[in-house]
């Protein structure tokens, strides 16, 4: 088999990696997936491809590395133009999509991470309050962007769908470990319906991990961290 011109250095559990896999799948781009083992030392390939941040995902296209998941998704959209579009074509809609994907990664996700670190019930309640505020905003964004259709991207899965969608496995894990039910049918009916539809979409198949598998992974990482700091 000829070596692929496209390689993705990623991790099955990382939402940042998952969204790139979704982008590649949407465009039917043949590629080689190179799993970076989260629990062992960073591979030479990763350190060479991403010397600055030393993180996955990294897309290597014709031996040129592209880092940062959102940039990779935009790159994929701009290079492979004969597949379905990931970003909208209208500049205002593109700006809106970029705004929300930045919001999801830089505002919502850091607050989600705070949940894990909340020291006591009171701190936890404060963080949950903040997370819910974000989710309510995302619900409004969904209503506005979808215009009554199935996805943020309209009839088809788009940029915001795969970015938010890449977190769905972990959102479920948060619930399993006693966290809030974020995409609750009462508070966020639009997003609840969206999540169900998204998880049945073929771009998601084999890419979004099973929550139980993620939970197992989470427990393993937690244990590894605890033992290394003991």
């Amino acid at each position, binding site marked *: 088999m000829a070596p692929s011109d496209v390689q993705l250095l990623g991790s099955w559990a990382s939402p940042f990696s998952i969204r790139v896999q979704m982008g590649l799948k949407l465009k039917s781009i043949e590629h080689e997936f190179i799993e970076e083992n989260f629990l062992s030392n960073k591979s030479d390939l990763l350190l060479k491809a991403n010397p600055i941040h030393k993180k996955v995902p990294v897309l290597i296209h014709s031996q040129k590395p592209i880092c940062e998941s959102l940039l990779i998704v935009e790159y994929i959209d701009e290079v492979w133009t004969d597949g379905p579009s990931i970003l909208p074509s209208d500049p*205002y809609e*593109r700006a809106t999509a*970029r*705004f929300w994907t930045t919001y999801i990664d830089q505002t919502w996700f850091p607050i989600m991470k705070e949940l894990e670190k909340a020291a006591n019930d009171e701190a936890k309640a404060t963080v949950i309050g903040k997370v819910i505020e974000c989710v309510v905003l995302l619900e409004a964004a969904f209503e506005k962007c979808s215009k009554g259709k199935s996805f943020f991207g309209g009839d088809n899965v788009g940029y915001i769908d795969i970015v938010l969608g890449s977190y769905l496995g972990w959102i479920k894990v948060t619930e399993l470990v006693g966290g809030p039910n974020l995409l609750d049918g009462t508070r966020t009916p639009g997003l609840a319906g969206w999540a169900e539809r998204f998880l049945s979409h073929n771009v998601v198949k084999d890419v979004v991990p099973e929550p139980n598998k993620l939970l197992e992974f989470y427990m393993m990482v937690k244990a590894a961290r605890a033992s290394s700091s003991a």
Partner: protein
Amino acid sequence: MAEELKLFRTWSSRYSLRIVQALKIKGLEYDTVLEDLSNKSDSLLKYNPIHKKVPILVHNGKPICESLVILEYIDETWKQNPLLPQDPYEKAMARFWAKFGEEKVLVSIWSAFTSQGKEQEEALATTANNLKFIEEQLKGKKFFGGEIIGYLDLAFGWMANLVSIFEEISNLKLVDAELFPLLSTWMDNFSNDPVIKELWPPRDRMVEKFKAMREPYLNKVIV
């Protein structure tokens, strides 16, 4: 049909200044709404209810927020004098370095400016490491955009203004011209470019402002 273009900004915001510069490069006419962030206008809160920040570009009544997103919107809407490279890989690189500038360079320089003692030493070392990467990007080029100013120059533009102001206030050497000759030359070239140079906010006001911002950090008792 006349286009309605409005920019909400403050007199000193480095993020807003990127948009002022971009609009000038594109030759676009627009109205300015100067905001006082201690007393935000109803319009600001209406157009950016989530972050409540400047800059906001309002085009025919539709708001666009986040300076780097606004730059891309401007570039995609008005095609003259392109800001971003055409090639997808070059574009991805420009976006990557802009992000690096925000998340690493700005953070380490601000940290060096506002800290003291060991913390400051560490921030200066981090800054130097970050700057090595930026210096590399300027090899063989006058501007990050090549021969002419582009997106990445506008993203890093704050350095051409604030580094010397921070150095003056703190007596620190943040960008050593001997260690970073290309970056130092770039800062001069960008600062004095005919399109850019009249747009800088008044320096004395900036010095006053950042001196005041630095005060609380200096008065912090180091336990």
